[in-house]
Structures are given as structure tokens and as C-alpha cells.
């Protein structure tokens, strides 16, 4: 009975979304103008800051060494994250690698949810700019499990409105607009989200990471917020990164 009400509610919410032809939808010219803005992305400053922070820990060279790859192979290797790393015996995001490197190097590790970590993550991912996402979810049982968990996390309806990520980000909503914003179908093959996060969010006037964005989305949709770096969160990133496989990485992105 209770679930019945919940489902009805979420249907009602979806019905309140309007279609792309609505008068409040932005024109393509407007969109082009916003796209042009990424030429001068305020997050470029944070990326430069992240580069400086990494330089205290050995820079690109130190990072490559820590990961056990050559500096030449580093960009392509970064384009394959999140990865299963034997040393940690788990699937990790780049931010967790940075954290581990800090700890091993005798530094006090930064919190995953901190501005400096976001800057570091953005810089490290930007090393792979121009590379195509090459995540391999069949590389090992751990990655397979992470992908499956990510899909489950994406599809599971929860929270006060019984919504899942899929409720608003599936093929069913293509062309719909949530107050001037076309909702992206994140579950589609070729969804590019993972290639453009971390990004500058104009609404927050700050640099945000993909996992941080998931948290914001969960909070607003009344879902219990999953911590950054948790198994489910990394799995969700694995799932969406797989959808973006083959997309060219372009960090920092610029988002509304």
C-alpha cells in the first residue's frame, strides 16, 4: 500500500516535467554561448592549484611512480579509472589513490570531501585530457562486481519519493526538461558525463567532482546520501564511466 503511494508520487513528479519544446527551454544559440564559456573556466584556477599541490608530492612523475606506470603511459592509465588496484585490494577512484599516496608519503591525507582534494582530483584527471575513457569492467572479478553494484545503485528506488537515479536519468526522459535543464540520459551508452567531471558548477560557484554531484542529486531527490569513496559510490562512478567509455576526457567541465 505504502509503496503504491510512493510510486504514484514519483509518477506525478515526472509528469510535472515539461518537454523540450516548452517555451522555457533554452535555444541552441544560448547553449552554444554557455559552451563557449568553458574557454575561460574559473575551475582552471583550481586545476592549476591541484597541480601545485601534487608538485609537493612529486608531481606527475611521483604519481606515475606510485601507480607503477611510466610517465608516458600515465594519461591512458588515468583514463581507465576507477580501477581495481591490487595494493589496496579494492576498486578505487583517483582521489583514493591520491589519499593513499599522501599517507604513504608521510603527509596527512586530505579528506575525500575537501576543496583541496577536489582540486587535486581535477588536476590528476586533467592529465588524461584528450585521452578516451578506457575503463575495463571485465578486467577482473572485482571490476565486474563493482559494475554490477553500480548498476544496482543506479536502479534501486529509495528515499521519501521512491526515486532511483534511473527515474530521472533514463531513456524514458529524453527530451524532457526540468526547469530549462534537459535531463541527461546517464544510463545510455555514450553518455559523456564521466568525461567532463570534475567540473565548475555555476550554481555553487565552485569545483565539484562527480561523486560530490551524485550526493547533491541524492539529497535533492530525498535519497539518503551515500558517502564519497564508499563502495557504492565508487561503483556508481564505475557504472557511469563505463557508459562514457570512448568519450574524450575534457577536464574541468563547466556545468550549470
Amino acid at each position, binding site marked *: 500500500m505504502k509503496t503504491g503511494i510512493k510510486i504514484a508520487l514519483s509518477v506525478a513528479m515526472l509528469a510535472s516535467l515539461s518537454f523540450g519544446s516548452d517555451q522555457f527551454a533554452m535555444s541552441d544559440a544560448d547553449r552554444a554561448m554557455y559552451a563557449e564559456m568553458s574557454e575561460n573556466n574559473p575551475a582552471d584556477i583550481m586545476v592549476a592549484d591541484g597541480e601545485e599541490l601534487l608538485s609537493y608530492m612529486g608531481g606527475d612523475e611521483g604519481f606515475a611512480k606510485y601507480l607503477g606506470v611510466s610517465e608516458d603511459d600515465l594519461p591512458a592509465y588515468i583514463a581507465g579509472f576507477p580501477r581495481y588496484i591490487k595494493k589496496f585490494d579494492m576498486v578505487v577512484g583517483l582521489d583514493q589513490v591520491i589519499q593513499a599516496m599522501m599517507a604513504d608519503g608521510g603527509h596527512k591525507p586530505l579528506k575525500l570531501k575537501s576543496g583541496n582534494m577536489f582540486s587535486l582530483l581535477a588536476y590528476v584527471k586533467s592529465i588524461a585530457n584528450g585521452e578516451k575513457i578506457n575503463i575495463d569492467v571485465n578486467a577482473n572479478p572485482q571490476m565486474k562486481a563493482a559494475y554490477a553494484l553500480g548498476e544496482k545503485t543506479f536502479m534501486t528506488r529509495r528515499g521519501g519519493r521512491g526515486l532511483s537515479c534511473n527515474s530521472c536519468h533514463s531513456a524514458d526522459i529524453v527530451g524532457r526538461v526540468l526547469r530549462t*535543464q534537459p535531463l541527461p540520459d546517464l544510463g545510455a551508452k555514450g553518455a559523456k558525463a564521466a568525461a567532463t567531471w570534475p567540473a565548475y558548477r*555555476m550554481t555553487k560557484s565552485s569545483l565539484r567532482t562527480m561523486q560530490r554531484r551524485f550526493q547533491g542529486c541524492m539529497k535533492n531527490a530525498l535519497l539518503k546520501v551515500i558517502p564519497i569513496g564508499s563502495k557504492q559510490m565508487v561503483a556508481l562512478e564505475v557504472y557511469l564511466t563505463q557508459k562514457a567509455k570512448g568519450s574524450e576526457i575534457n577536464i574541468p567541465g563547466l556545468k550549470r
Partner: protein
Amino acid sequence: MQRRDFFKKLGTAAAITAVIPAMSFAGDAKPKGPNAMDFDTAVKTITGGKTPKSSKKVKLKVPEIAENGAVVPVTVTVDSPMTASNYVKAIHILDGKNSNARCIDVFLTPANGKAMFSTRIKLGGTQNVTALVELSNGEFLMASQSVKVTIGGCG
């Protein structure tokens, strides 16, 4: 005349409540910005009373619908040779409804090579954005466009 006086008195009464923020609803009243100036006054201040001409030489690029009122891209380009004798002296960007109509006054020189300025402004609601341009011969040109500000998307 009498009616006007009556309204004048009302106006002063309202002003008095506004300066005592501890009292009643005045605490919730929108605080005035440090540089509050309405659009007409701002234009007059900049032009010194001259009337600006609407001109196709001034290209104002703003979105018709802003994704986010906090970050509205504005680009002003002026068709000008930018030589020592004929150049764009200043580009002013103004808004219609913000507490302070002035956003930025940009003073260019021939060393800029091209007359263009681009930035991002905050708009607290749907309103006109105006580019007011001063040429080296003292002439003022302008271009305006309305920007619809919506509260977009989630969070």
C-alpha cells in the same frame, strides 16, 4: 499637488521604518546595496546627459534564457578600427533591475587592437542587459537585450 505631497509623506514614513531594522518587518526588507543606482541615473551619470543612439555597430551577446541567474555570460563587441584617432573609449555593461544598474565600466585604448569585452554577471530576475559604448569622438552608442532568468534544474 496635494496628492503628491501625501505620497511624499508616505515615502518618508516608509524610509524611517527602513532605517530602524530592529523594528517589525523592516528586518526582512531587502537591504539596499552599497552602490544602489537605477538604470536611468546610471546612463545619465555615464553619458553626462547625452542621449545614446541605438546602433548596430554594438553587438551585445547575452543568452535569451539564462541557465543560472548567478552566472550570465555577456559579450560586447564594437565595430571599430581601434586607431589612435578613432577607437572605443569605454564599454559599460548595465542591467535593468539589479539594485545597482552598473555592472562594469571598461576603459579601452587603441592598444587593445579590437573593441571587445566579455564577462559574467549576476541577474536577480528577468531584465534587460544594456551595452553602453563611448567612442573617442564623444559619441555614445547602445544596444539592449532582455534576458529571461529562470531557476533551472536540480540543486
